[in-house]
């Protein structure tokens, strides 16, 4: 029974090298190379595995600046069938409410679909809100931390396993539904050459803007975002003292080290 699956992915700055703007308290995203949110690769792999078992089609969607095209090409390289880049200046500066609204409206255009999957959370904001909020807009059931899914009863229901710390729960959900895949729960497959060439040669990435979606501009982007950053506390920078123990005796070295720590107020008991 073929499945029509949609996977939502976010194009995120590689947060290992990102800084916080000390004035506004928000991430400085400019000039930082972006990647597909690593946890979303688990969602893509999850979708591809389902497609391998039941057949069907996997569509990736991302709301992002145009540069995400490179990331979507990468996903087509993994085996995603087509991708939709939702991009428009009016969508910029969105919080989770505005983001999920746009995603929900885009998913509505793609209906009927059987399953909409998400990563668990992102590495640049990690609210883990988007799956739940999108489901609320769509008025569909959702479930988080999924590690396995199997079709039951023809195509009407799906049986999923989800992890809660040390517990695994089994649920049955009606289709269509939304699910967020537990991060690190599988190994995303590598890209293949023929898929990458497909990504380059066939037009598999559609670009949708607001001329097409026609969403109320008061509900999207910065205008549609009630979230404010009230305060952000940067981690203090501790300058290195660059002290060096010059002796050779290990006992002396340990004593020296403890003395230095004591000077910093560290007590060893």
């Amino acid at each position, binding site marked *: 029974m073929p499945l029509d699956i949609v996977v939502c992915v976010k194009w995120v700055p590689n947060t290992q090298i990102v800084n916080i703007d000390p004035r506004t308290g928000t991430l400085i995203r400019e000039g930082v190379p972006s990647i597909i949110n690593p946890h979303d690769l688990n969602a893509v792999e999850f979708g591809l595995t389902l497609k391998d078992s039941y057949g069907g089609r996997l569509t990736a969607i991302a709301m992002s600046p145009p540069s995400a095209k490179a990331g979507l090409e*990468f996903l087509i*390289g993994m085996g995603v069938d087509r991708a939709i880049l939702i991009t428009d200046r009016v969508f910029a500066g969105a919080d989770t409410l505005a983001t999920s609204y746009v995603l929900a409206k885009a998913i509505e255009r793609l209906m009927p679909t059987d399953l909409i999957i998400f990563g668990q959370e992102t590495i640049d904001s990690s609210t883990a809100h988007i799956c739940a909020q999108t489901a609320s807009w769509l008025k569909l059931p959702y479930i988080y931390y999924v590690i396995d899914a199997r079709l039951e009863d023809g195509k009407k229901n799906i049986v999923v396993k989800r992890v809660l710390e040390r517990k695994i729960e089994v649920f049955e959900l009606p289709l269509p539904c939304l699910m967020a895949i537990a991060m690190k729960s599988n190994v995303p497959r*590598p*890209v*293949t*050459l*023929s898929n*990458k*060439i497909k990504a*380059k*040669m066939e037009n598999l990435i559609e670009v949708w803007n607001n001329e097409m979606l026609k969403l109320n501009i008061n509900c999207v982007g910065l205008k549609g975002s009630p979230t404010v950053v009230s305060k952000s506390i940067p981690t203090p920078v501790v300058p290195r003292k660059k002290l060096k123990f010059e002796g050779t005796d290990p006992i002396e070295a340990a004593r020296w080290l403890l003395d230095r720590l004591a000077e910093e107020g560290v007590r060893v008991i």
Partner: protein
Amino acid sequence: MDPPSATKFDVAIVGAGPAGASAAYTLARKGFKVVVLERGRTPGSKNLFGGRVYSHPLELIFEGFKNEAPIERWTKREVLSFVTEEGIVSVEYASGSSTSFTAYLSKLSAWMASKAESAGAILVTDVRVDDILMENGKAVGIVSGGDRLYADVVVIAEGVNRLLCERRNITPQLSPEEVALGVKHVIRLGTDKINDRFGLDSNEGLAWFLIGKVTDYLPGGAFLYTNSTTVSLGIVVFLSHAMKKVKRHIYEVLEDLRTSPPFTRLLEGGSLVEYGSHLTPEAGLKMMPKKLYGDGFLIVGDAAGLLINLGYTVRGVDLAAFSGYLAAEAIEEAHSLGSYTSHNLSCYERKLNDSFVMKEMKRHDSVQKLMSKSHIFELYPQVLVGTTKRLFEFEEASPKLLEAAKESLKGKGSKFKMLLDAITLMRGP
């Protein structure tokens, strides 16, 4: 194996370095259906070099090169220094005009690849080619993971570490004698500090080479190039010597250099923004494959051994790019003859021989041989610095030049040999 990719190309190029990108650009402009396969995530991400490129060959290949390419500074000052524990003696050449510029190879390769893409080539990154696909002794495509991709001709532009050529017995395995190892820091200083400390205008670049103590007197040398806001500082050592004589990790040699005068002062306040290492061919003509072409394939750039390495300076980007360009011309010629047989592709070798590439390779071959001898890197600095020291550091009687030279040459071999070496050296770039 999966079924072969549905798309077939006229030409498949392995590697998006200067050689591969130039071949792709030229072929795409001639109307060939070209695919370039690069294992790096982006073109340029796997490429590293010292820092200076000779411009003219690139201007011939790429339209709009001088205006569009990511050029940092035009090199207008050249300094060659001899370094010992006692001091430094430097020779400087400064000029109003310039034929070379400083650059980041990562940016330059990325630019070349983007030109190839705009000309119509398909660039696929993040894929490693595992093998050349051969049928009846003829290259018919490439293999990557479980995928096969067919093409009428394969251009091998895989760089110095030519694993594909080795796998197909086109070249023997590399030996340490044939390669040198480069290690490099990129240090951000800002335009003003660079201009002040190195005595440059914003558009003027410095190329500075040092030999002697900088590599613990091993064959090789150190280099410093000024970019717009950063400085590239590195060393190159011939691998066979390094393996035998360097008792510590090679990066420590560079670290020592960076933290010794005059560099401590010149680089003060700088921050390390990049650190890298790469092999480079050093054996000159000896490292070239016997044939640079065969049925259905051509070899270009570093993979073909087309590089001039004088120990303290390496020149390969322009040779690599131009060999890619000539390979494209050869493919066009073979195409007009109706097939890509070894015979029809042999015009590649003729084109190389007629171009500056082989002429330069041959002209520098004796210099390269000389540079792999260790005495140059020990004797020259010792004698030059020794003589100069005796000339200027005295207490009462100032010595005559000849006396000073004689004194510092004591027990250091024949003056005649040194003269011969000097002549060979001067025929360098």
